[in-house]
């Protein structure tokens, strides 16, 4: 039965992918890409990857779609007919695909419990993580404690991407926005939308806080929470205008939050060294190793959440405050 759901979802994914390569209106392509991400999130749930499904739905559908629409507003919306024949591209693609499929002959069957991937570190993580680290969610304990160094690198990558986008696109200053105060916001007469947004933004923020702290016991954690925080602020920006949003959260506070999150993460690692353990060895943070692990995971997830929130909002502000082309 699960196999049937799997097969249907994968078929829908294949159809969506073919549609993306066929449509020439870029707006439709971006919407299809968001649908693709949502279908992938459903597929991940059937494959028992609930954390990954959560992140893919939040990040791939929401943030990636919003950023692509932001870029689309600043450039053109239709793709020109491809200038050359697709035969060479098709040949390359088919050859690569055939070689890859030949390579999957050696892969273990889907769902095989005796596959090599389940024989090395994974049994130790599953059986020992509750005694060594504590949280019932094995993914959080592996992400934050056993493989904490990789997560530090990932936070740094997000921070670097935020820095790059701000360096490339920059901001119009708040003063330039307030000069146009007489012009009403685009959404000023969308009364229903503004009231519903006003009702829901606090609930979305509350849910983001819940996801941040509940990551130990269920799917969740810093990344998903940061993205949900950012989406609440993006909803506010879309309904009330960029000028108001820049007054609520000026970019200099966002810079501080982004850098502060990375500093919190690295600082936790250094605190462990100062107290006598290794870098990011949270057992040194308290006299009881499990309490230390819990404290360490709390601190670094907070750091990750801060950085992800600040960077996503910064990127959205950068895209939406760029002047439209004067054509």
């Amino acid at each position, binding site marked *: 039965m699960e196999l049937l759901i799997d097969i249907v979802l994968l078929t829908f994914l294949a159809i969506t992918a073919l549609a993306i390569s066929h449509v020439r209106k870029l707006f439709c392509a971006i919407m299809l890409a968001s649908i693709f991400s949502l279908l992938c999130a459903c597929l991940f749930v059937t494959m028992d990857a609930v954390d990954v499904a959560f992140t893919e739905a939040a990040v791939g559908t929401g943030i990636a779609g919003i950023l692509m629409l932001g870029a689309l507003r600043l450039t053109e919306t239709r793709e020109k007919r491809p200038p050359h024949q697709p035969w060479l591209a098709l040949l390359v693609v088919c050859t690569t695909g055939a070689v890859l499929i030949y390579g999957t002959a050696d892969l273990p069957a889907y769902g095989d419990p005796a596959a090599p991937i389940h024989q090395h570190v994974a049994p130790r993580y599953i059986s020992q993580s509750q005694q060594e680290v504590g949280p019932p969610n094995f993914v959080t304990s592996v992400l934050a404690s056993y493989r904490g160094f990789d997560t530090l690198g990932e936070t740094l990558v997000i921070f670097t991407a935020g820095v790059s986008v701000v360096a490339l696109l920059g901001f119009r200053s708040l003063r330039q926005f307030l000069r146009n105060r007489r012009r009403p916001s685009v959404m000023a007469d*969308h009364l*229903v*939308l503004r009231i*519903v947004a006003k*009702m*829901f933004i606090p*609930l979305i923020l509350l849910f983001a806080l819940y996801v941040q702290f509940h990551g130990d016991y269920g799917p969740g954690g810093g990344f998903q929470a940061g993205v949900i925080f950012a989406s609440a602020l993006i909803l506010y920006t879309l309904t009330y205008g960029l000028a108001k949003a820049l007054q609520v959260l000026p970019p200099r506070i966002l810079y501080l939050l982004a850098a502060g999150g990375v500093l919190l993460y690295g600082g936790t690692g250094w605190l462990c060294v100062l107290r006598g353990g290794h870098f990011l060895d949270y057992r040194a943070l308290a006299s009881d190793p499990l309490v230390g692990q819990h404290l360490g995971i709390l601190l670094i997830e907070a750091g990750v959440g801060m950085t992800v929130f600040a960077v996503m909002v910064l990127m959205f502000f950068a895209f939406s405050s760029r002047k439209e082309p004067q054509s």
Partner: protein
Amino acid sequence: MALLLDLMTAVFLLLGSLIGLTGGIGVHRLPDFFTRLHACGLTDSACAFLVLTGLMLQSGWSLVSLKLIFILIFLLVTSPTASHALAKTALGCGERPLSQRGTED
């Protein structure tokens, strides 16, 4: 009792899927933007309500049902808002319903 619950869940889920399918066919086949918007609004509200109620019947009185109720309330408030925003923007951009297209030019 369990059999009755299972039967009702099956009925709700089946009805929900049928309505979803109808909404999908409507989005594809209906002639005008506003009629298509109505079809997908049907999917958002009726299909979501039926499917979520079916799931709530299966999970009984538990935390899962409470979370499903929250999801249902959220969907029932935000989906009509989205349809409203789409329709209002379309009217603002000059899109006119089929019935009004012949009368004004």
